[in-house]
C-alpha cells in the first residue's frame, strides 16, 4: 500500500540536507523509517525525523534519487510505504545522542530538554540539528575542525561524562558506530544503535539488509548493545546489492 501524501513545507537544514514536511495520520515511533518512492528514479529508506502531528523526513543529497527528491515542492505528492522497523526504546531520562553525518536525522525525534548531542560531520556547515538542543547541550565535532572539536565522533565522547546518561543512542556510518561500540562495549551503559544497510524491500523479505541473520528493516534498524555484542558481521562484513560479501576496511 502506497500512501500519497501532500508536501506542506520544505526546509533547508544544511547546504546538502533538507526536510520535507507532510501530514500523515499514522502513529510513528522514534527510529522507525519509511520507504520513499520517487517515480522514475528509485525508492529509498528514510527515517521519519518528526513523528508528532507534523511528519517529516530529512534527506541528504547523495545520488540521483535524493537529488530528485530535493526538487520536490509544496503541494507535490510524496509516495510512501511504511512506517517500518523497530523503534528506539524511548528513555525519559538523560539521553546522549551521537549522530554522524545524516545519521542525526534518525536521532532527531529523540531530542528533548534532557538530550545532549554529539553531532559529527566533515565540515561545520553540515552539522545537522545542532540548534534543536538546549543551549550548551550540542557538542559539535568536525573532521576539518571548522566548528567545535576537531576529529571524528569518538572525539566528542571524550567531552562528556558517559555515566550520567540513562540512555545513549548512536546513528551514523557503520565504521563510526563500530568505533563507538568498541569504546562502549565493556560498559554496562544502556546503548542503542540505528543501522543502515542496503535495503530493497524494506519489509523483511529479500534479505538484502541483513546482519547476522537479522533483517535491519524488520528486526532493526535499532539494535541494543546486547544484540550488537552478539554480532559477527557488524563493522566487519556485509553484502553488496548483488549479495556479494565484502569485508570492511
Amino acid at each position, binding site marked *: *500500500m*502506497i500512501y500519497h501524501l501532500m508536501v506542506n513545507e520544505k526546509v533547508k537544514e544544511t547546504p546538502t540536507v533538507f526536510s520535507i514536511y507532510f501530514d500523515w495520520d499514522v502513529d510513528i515511533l522514534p527510529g522507525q523509517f519509511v520507504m520513499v*518512492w520517487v517515480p*522514475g528514479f528509485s525508492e529509498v529508506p528514510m527515517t521519519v525525523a518528526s513523528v508528532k502531528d507534523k511528519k517529516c523526513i530529512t534527506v541528504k543529497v547523495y545520488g540521483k534519487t535524493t537529488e530528485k527528491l530535493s526538487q520536490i515542492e509544496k503541494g507535490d505528492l510524496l509516495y510512501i510505504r511504511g512506517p517500518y522497523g523497530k523503534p528506539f526504546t524511548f528513555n525519559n531520562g538523560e539521553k546522549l545522542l551521537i549522530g554522524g553525518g545524516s545519521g542525526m536525522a534518525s536521532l532527531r525525534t529523540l531530542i528533548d530538554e534532557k538530550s545532549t548531542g554529539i553531532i559529527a560531520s566533515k565540515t561545520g556547515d553540515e552539522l545537522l540539528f545542532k540548534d534543536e538542543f538546549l543551549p550548551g547541550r550540542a557538542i559539535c565535532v568536525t573532521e576539518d575542525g571548522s566548528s567545535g572539536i576537531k576529529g571524528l565522533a569518538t572525539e566528542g565522547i571524550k567531552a562528556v561524562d558517559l555515566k550520567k546518561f540513562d540512555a545513549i543512542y548512536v546513528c551514523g556510518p557503520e565504521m563510526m558506530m563500530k568505533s563507538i561500540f568498541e569504546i562502549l562495549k565493556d560498559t554496562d551503559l544502556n546503548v542503542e544503535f540505528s543501522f543502515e544497510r542496503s535495503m*530493497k524491500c*524494506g519489509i523483511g523479505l*529479500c534479505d538484502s539488509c541483513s546482519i547476522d*541473520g537479522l533483517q535491519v528493516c524488520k528486526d532493526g534498524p535499532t539494535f541494543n548493545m546486547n544484540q550488537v555484542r552478539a554480532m559477527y558481521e557488524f563493522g566487519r562484513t556485509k553484502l553488496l546489492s*548483488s*549479495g556479494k560479501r565484502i569485508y570492511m576496511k
Partner: protein
Amino acid sequence: MSKLEIKAGGIKLDHPVMLASGILDENGYTMKKILEEGAAAAVTKSIGAEERNGYISPVVVEGEGYIINAMGLPNPGIELYEEEIRIAKKSKKPVIGSIFAADPDGFLNLAEKMVDYGVDGIELNLSCPHVKGFGTEVGSDPVLVKEIVKTLKGSIDKPVWSKLSPNVTDIVEIGQAASESDALVLINTVRAMAIDIYARKPVLTNVYGGMSGSSIKSVGIRLVYEIKKELDMEIIGVGGIQNGNDAIEYIMAGASAVQVGTAAWKYGRGVFKSIMDQIAQFMEENHIRGIDEIIGVAVQ
C-alpha cells in the same frame, strides 16, 4: 505420536516445511538462523554465473494477501557463493542450491559448483517470471527443459529438483519434460503487476513482477494436483502456504513436502515451527501416523 519425518525428492527432512528460494536467503547467516529456528531445509536464492545487482527499487509491491516482487535475480555469481553455503551448512541441516542459467551447460556448471560447496540438492529455477532470457523463457520450452534435466541427472549425484512456473498453458507438458527430476517444485510466482494511479506509472521499476502469498495458494494447489494426477511424480509444494492447514492441503494434493516464502515475511521466522506444529496437531487429531499416508489422498 505422528511421524513428521519425510524423504522428499531424495532428501531426508525432519519435517515437511522448508524455506523457499529467494526469501531471506541471500546471506548465509540468515539461512543458518532460519534453519536453527525451525525450517527443515533451506533453498538458496537463485544463483547464476555472473554477479547481478538485480533491479532498481521499487522491487516489491505489498497488497492484501499478496506481494508482487521483481528482485531481478540479484546474486554475487556462483564463484563467490561458497561462503554463504558454508555458513548456512553450519546448521547441519539440508541446504538446496537454487540455480538459473539459459542452457544445459550453464546449469551444469552451476550445479557442479554448488555440489562442490556442499549442498544437499539442486533446485533448477526454470520459472522466474520477470528476467529476460532466464526463468519462464527457459522453463516454458519443453525441449530445453528436458535437455537441461537430462544433462544434470547424468552428471550430478545429488537430487535435482525442477521448479516450474504457473504461467504456462499446459503444466503437464512441462512436467513431463522434467520428469527425470527427483521432484518438481510447484509453483514459482504468478506474473503480475501494479500501477500507481497518482504517479500514472507501474510501481515496479521492472514493470512486471511475480505474485506470491496467500492469493496464489489455490493456483498452486491446482498445479500440484494436476501434476500428481497426470504424472504421479514427486512434488514439493510452494505458493501461499501460511499455516498447517495450507501445508496439508498441498500434501493431500500430492506434495511430499512444502516450501514457505512470503509467510516468513508476514509472520516472521517462527512460521516454520508453527506450521510444523500445526501439521503435527492435525495428524494427531486425525490419527495420521505419517506424512506418507496423506500424500495425494485427495487426488481422484
